[in-house]
């Protein structure tokens, strides 16, 4: 069937929203990043100065390092947990629907409430987990002061919030592995570990790659958990790129510099998504022939 004008009109609302709210503003940010200005000021073109300043700023590198640490920890802890949970559930659990519902619940919790819940348990001196650690004689948690404790709590929170997503991706992939493969493995006398390494894991790889890609891209934006828990402090030691950007745009009103940070984030995101985007591009091209 030929594409008619009417069909373009039907995709227009979606495309217009994306173009007007994300596309054009992103390009505007690219331009803004090459200027120096603040609200109510004339923008002055400064070339790549903002980028040079950022790259020379130790606070930027700290934010970058923290983001790098958090993203990698979150993504791989989540993936390992999701594979474990998926295998556990695929092996059969009682009351499966109820169990999956409980597993899904954190998906419905917003990051503010998650911070409330976890702070309640981890509050210095009075939190339940803090007191439990003290009772058994372990060193206590001191996340308001200690950078590594804070980063650990941030990772914990983030994994808690997003584990349902990763688990569903891996679990549904696990369920779609044909049962015959497992029967064949059993006939050949494969042990549990052999079955995992030669059947389950290879069959899960496409789903694992998808989960990794999406979680990398989304974990990289992390803002709420950090902002609500530590405000990037103490003394900027838990700052991530998004809070660093926020500080420069809405607190210091250095919009040129903030825009440059924005483009660093944008380019990094696209680089992470590149393998996936290339694959989608190829598939679309082949469908179009």
């Amino acid at each position, binding site marked *: *069937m030929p*594409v008619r004008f009417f*069909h*373009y009109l*039907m*995709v227009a*609302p*979606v*495309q217009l*929203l*994306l173009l007007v709210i*994300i*596309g054009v*503003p*992103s390009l505007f940010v690219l331009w803004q990043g090459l200027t120096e200005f603040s*609200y109510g000021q004339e923008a002055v073109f400064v070339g790549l100065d903002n980028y040079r300043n950022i790259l020379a700023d130790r606070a930027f590198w700290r934010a970058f390092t923290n983001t790098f640490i958090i993203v990698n920890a979150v993504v791989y802890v989540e993936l390992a947990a999701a594979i*474990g949970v998926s295998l*556990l559930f695929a092996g*059969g659990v009682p009351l499966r629907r109820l169990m*999956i*519902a*409980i*597993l*899904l*619940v954190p998906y*419905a*919790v*917003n*990051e*503010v*409430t998650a911070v*409330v*819940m976890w702070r*309640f348990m981890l509050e210095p001196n*009075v939190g339940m987990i803090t007191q439990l650690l003290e009772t058994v004689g372990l060193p206590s948690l001191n996340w308001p002061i200690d950078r590594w404790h804070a980063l650990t709590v941030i990772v914990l929170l983030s994994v*808690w919030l997003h584990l*349902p997503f990763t688990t*569903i*991706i891996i679990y*549904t992939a696990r369920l779609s592995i044909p049962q015959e493969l497992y029967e064949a493995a059993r006939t050949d006398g494969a042990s549990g570990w052999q079955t995992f390494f030669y059947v389950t894991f290879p069959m899960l790889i496409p789903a694992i790659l*998808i989960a990794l890609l999406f979680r990398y*891209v989304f974990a990289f*934006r992390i*803002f709420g958990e950090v902002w609500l828990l530590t405000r990037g402090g103490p003394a900027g030691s838990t700052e991530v790129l*998004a809070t660093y950007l926020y500080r420069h*745009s*809405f607190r210091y009103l250095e*919009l040129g510099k*903030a825009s440059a940070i*924005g483009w660093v*984030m*944008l380019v990094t*995101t*696209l680089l992470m*998504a590149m393998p996936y*985007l290339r694959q989608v*591009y190829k598939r*679309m091209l082949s*469908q*179009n022939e």
Partner: protein
Amino acid sequence: MNRRPWWVSGLRYVALAAVLLWSGFPILLMILASLKPDREIFRFPPSFIFRPTLANYVELFTSRPAFFDALLNSLIITVGATVLTVVSSTLAGYVYSRYRNTALAGTAFFMIVIRMLPPIIITLPLFPAVNALGLQDTHLVLIVLYATFFVSLNSWIMKAFIDQIPRELDEAAIVDGASTVKVLRYVIVPLSVQGMIATATFVFVFSWNEFLFAFIFTTSNAKTAPLVISEMLSSLAGIDWGVLFAAATLQFIPIVVLVILLQRFVVAGLTVGSVKG
């Protein structure tokens, strides 16, 4: 058929208990704490049997009536964003499923690339733009922003669902002289309701819970519930934990009920949207 050694079964139950504890315990603890009098809240070890009280909820109602306005704002914004997203994504999903040419393929690719960009970037130019238009602190801004960040994923999900409807059905209708509107109304929409519910659930949960945009674009009139909870959390006068738990519980209960009821669609949508997209 289950011939696992006893210790493997035992370990599996331990693991299952750990998973449930991890997912459910923080939530259970908060809901219970919202029903406790202040002095009980931080008692260690925590009590699970106690006389529940609604004092925290009453205090929330009397001392922070703004929270209930915020819940209403959240509802208005969430419903607005959901309707906008589902309608626009269904239209786009239909076209992407049934028609193909270079221009459409280009826009489809654009749609996928742009959904990757970190949302915080666009707050930079949009903040002054929204102010210049006099739209700061309105429901409309958040409705449009939330919809924008989900139309891409949701068009893709709708396309995947509509792909499963046999083409012969709508082609036959077109041969019989039905207009595109009629094809949508009588063929596509009734057969892709599952997809529409899945996409609606995604935007609904996202909009109900979103923090960053609400934090940047609203100050009083259109403030959403998560934002008010975050203010209670960072109150300079110290945190009133009981009231905070009551507010968080009220924000959380409706959405969790919805997610559990629509569990099947959430799973189907996530699978279709990420694995096939």
